[in-house]
């Protein structure tokens, strides 16, 4: 496809921008969701309101969040950081419940055994509960990653520089080439995120491979 070859550098630039806008929220969102999910597990009363509250947050349409956040945060309208913050909120909203469920999936017996072996609560969390929760959390993270790549492309409507601009440009000129390239690039990017997360999960859960259990 000659258009693609001619515009390789633009595709690359926009891909990098897209990685930033979709990927950074994943990392930050996970870091924030971990303590929140832990709280939801620790204090049973919090689970329901957290799930409901974050569920509500997740249903707010992305365009609305992209446009309204700058006003609330007193930022400039076109600042891409607005998109990052919005995506982080979505990631947190998705992951809090996943983290809570993941930590909840750790068998009680294991936690008790750890305590019996002398692990303090803090060490038990980091050394036993969190690693065992990794498969579930990673499943949630994969979903969040794929979702983020797609939602970020919608910010093209407000002119944010990323792969979605290929959609708007292709559509405005009735030109299939950029449109198709943009769609394919997004799909490839989403699948790449997925693979990276699977890879990191594998590295973090060697016992799964050792026992032959399905991750």
């Amino acid at each position, binding site marked *: 496809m000659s258009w693609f070859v001619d515009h390789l550098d633009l595709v690359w630039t926009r891909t990098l921008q897209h990685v930033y806008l979709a990927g950074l929220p994943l990392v930050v969102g996970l870091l924030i969701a971990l303590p929140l999910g832990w709280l939801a597990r620790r204090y049973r009363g919090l689970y329901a309101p957290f799930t409901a509250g974050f*569920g*509500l947050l*997740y*249903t*707010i*349409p*992305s*365009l*609305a*969040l992209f*446009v*309204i956040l700058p*006003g*609330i945060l007193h930022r400039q309208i076109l600042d891409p950081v607005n998109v990052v913050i919005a995506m982080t909120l*979505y990631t947190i909203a*998705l992951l809090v*419940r*996943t983290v809570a*469920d*993941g930590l909840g*999936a750790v068998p009680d017996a294991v936690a008790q055994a750890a305590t019996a072996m002398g692990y303090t609560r803090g060490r038990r969390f980091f050394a036993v509960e969190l690693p065992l929760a990794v498969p*579930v959390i990673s*499943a*949630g993270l994969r*979903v*969040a990653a*794929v*979702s983020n*790549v*797609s*939602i970020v*492309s*919608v910010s*093209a*409507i*407000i002119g944010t520089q990323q*792969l*979605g601009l*290929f*959609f*708007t440009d*292709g*559509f405005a000129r*009735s030109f*299939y080439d950029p*449109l*198709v390239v*943009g*769609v394919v690039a*997004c*799909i490839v990017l*989403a*699948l790449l995120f*997925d693979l990276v997360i699977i890879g990191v999960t594998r590295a973090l859960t060697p016992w799964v491979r050792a026992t032959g259990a399905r991750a």
Partner: protein
Amino acid sequence: MIAGIIDWLGDPAHWAGDDGIPHRLLEHLWYSGLSLLVAALIAVPVGLAIGHTGRGRFFVVNLAGAARAIPSLGLLFLMVLWLFPKLGGDAAFLVPNLIVLIVLAIPPIMAGAYAGVEGVDPAARDAAKGMGMTGMGVLRKVELPCALPLVFSGLRSAALQVVATATIGAIAGLGGLGRFLIDGLHVNDYSQMAGGALLIALLALVVDAAFALVQRYAVSPGLSGRFRTRPEPGDQPMDVEMSVGQHRVG
């Protein structure tokens, strides 16, 4: 801004006519419901078949996984560009949008269906065969009812995504609650945008609650343990997989 939203919602002019909230709400429900129905008609049988026969899993599962990665806005533009000139009347606006929503809804519904059938207690399957049921009989009378909780979980997850993503149809000239978002965006009317966003979020929650209700009463009491007075461990199917299956693309 909250005052602005309240003003916008309180204005009676916004509740009347084609541009009014009730009409847009019905449009939104129509698009969502129709696409969910079509997606279910396609995905549930396929998912059940995969779970029951255990074949074709690899291919279909990965296809569904890749389908989740398709950006909705891009697909919408592609469909409009391709199909709009070929269709007449309102169908030209509706069909491209429906296709996008259907593609979005199929993966979670299919996942729910095959996970549900796969998760059926082998003892139950065994007992059914012992009673003399054939393949289709086992599927219909034992596997499907046992799989219902996860099938519903998938439907619920898909419904949420569809209601949220039906919003972007407004970019391609469609109606629905997304209209408030796009129209508000174009004239910098934050109250309209925020009001529209709030309505969509509320609609999604209501739809979710409705599905939860249907799930509660459609799933056999033997499975949900509804008739038991004391909850026992292992009551609720651990639909952790489904809880993470929920995702948005728009």
